[in-house]
């Protein structure tokens, strides 16, 4: 597989990972958390979970990008430090508006009886914040 094919494939897996996370949260808060035990919705959550795991393994775990953003600076070379720093900067730029938007939505929806706050959203956000730098690296790096 050449570099361009590998990058396209990696980007596809990034899209699958983020889409799985987004639809998992959407389906969960749209149907399941509200007490609607629709087997189709539960099945779709299962599909999202499978998509999340299947795309996580090749794009983040096997490439080692996961460890790059968690490694000590002394263990990285100058290019790795530079690209990791850039990825963290982009992560901050993406994550802060996402969090603010969710906080705003929670503030607006907080008074309604249908408003639900449980562990699924914070868990999703925690996962998102953790993988975001690695996902940005996977998206931008030509070769990993």
């Amino acid at each position, binding site marked *: 597989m050449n570099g361009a094919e590998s990058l396209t494939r990696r980007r596809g897996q990034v899209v699958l990972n983020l889409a799985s996370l987004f639809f998992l949260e959407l389906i969960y808060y749209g149907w399941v958390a509200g007490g609607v035990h629709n087997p189709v919705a539960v099945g779709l959550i299962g599909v999202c979970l499978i998509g999340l795991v299947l795309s996580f393994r090749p794009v983040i775990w096997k490439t080692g990008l996961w460890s790059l953003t968690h490694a000590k600076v002394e263990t*990285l*070379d*100058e*290019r*790795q430090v530079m690209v990791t720093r850039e990825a963290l900067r982009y992560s901050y730029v993406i994550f802060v508006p996402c969090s603010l938007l969710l906080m705003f939505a929670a503030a607006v929806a907080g008074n309604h009886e249908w408003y639900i706050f449980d562990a699924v959203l914070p868990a999703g956000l925690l996962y998102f914040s953790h993988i975001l730098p690695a996902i940005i690296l996977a998206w931008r790096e*030509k*070769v*990993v």
Partner: protein
Amino acid sequence: MKPRKIYNRIPVFRNERDLSRQNLADLVGVNYQTIGYLEREEYNPSLDLAFRIAEAFGLPVDMVFSTKPMKPLSEVLRDHLEKEGD
């Protein structure tokens, strides 16, 4: 300030010495992917790394790196021989 592109002859000297990217990376203390990025001229090395690479080849740094596109070594040699002949 937009950085200038730095050209190099790393692939030529590396192949001459029969070194793999990993070998050269180990010699200069970087990841092998960084050598790939340098060879494709997609990354400009720091001054320290440029010197370390030149030292690994046992050559002056201006023979390995340049801010202008580098002539093939055969052309440089021919020009040199022509100059000597004059």
